[in-house]
């Protein structure tokens, strides 16, 4: 499965468009990380725990995107976009969407 944020793949023709596919994942931070983050709010700097958490959650969202694309019979997802929003205090949603296509 080719996942790309380009709109077309040079040298490969798009045979069929299959519409939008998406994947999302909402993750909450656990208490230990929240305490560390509270300390970091005083000292400043990178919150490594959160960076990892969001990376994991992005992986999961992409996995769902991939599953959905496979289900509709695509062999590539083009023009992939990411979006992050904090839906509630202490939880963030990662959303991935793209166009499922069949490449020759």
């Amino acid at each position: 499965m080719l996942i790309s944020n380009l709109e077309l793949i040079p040298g490969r023709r798009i045979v069929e468009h299959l519409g939008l596919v998406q994947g999302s994942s909402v993750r909450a931070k656990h208490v230990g990380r929240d305490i560390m983050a509270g300390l970091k709010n005083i000292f400043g700097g990178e919150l490594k725990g959160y960076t990892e958490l969001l990376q994991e959650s992005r992986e999961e969202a992409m996995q769902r995107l991939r599953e959905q694309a496979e289900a509709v019979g695509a062999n590539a997802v083009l023009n992939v976009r990411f979006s992050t929003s904090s839906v509630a205090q202490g939880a963030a949603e990662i959303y991935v969407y793209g166009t499922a296509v069949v490449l020759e």
Partner: protein
Amino acid sequence: MIELGIFLALLTLGYGFGQYAERRHYRSIIEREKRLNALPAIAARFPPTEPQHHQALVIGSTVISVDYFKRFLAALRNLFGGRVTAYESLLDRARRESSLRMKQQAETLGAEMVFNVKYETASISKGRGNTIGSIEVLAYGTALIRPQAADTDR
């Protein structure tokens, strides 16, 4: 009186550690930027058709938090208006760090350039009074890899 003491202590701690961390971070950013200069990351939407490249999605992200002192400065700034330099440097650091991580990932894949780079900024947690607690910056793009360097087509 005790509360004021705690506040001042937090302010000094924030100032000391925050400034130190920022200076160290900028040094490391500049050093890595110099090293990765040979790998261009551009926002063009359409890649060159010749020669044929393999490609892979590369992602870099950073969550970074502002320190106590800077948050105080920003709150003061809210009274008078104007540029909030405290947050400007925060966002600048996060953005450059994310783009460096993206480039590093592209480098390990053996890419020669990164196309269609997009940035995405989100505020992850809010502090008291709706001030920015920490922000996440995500940078992503398509790495173009020369065919002989690539063995997997993700």
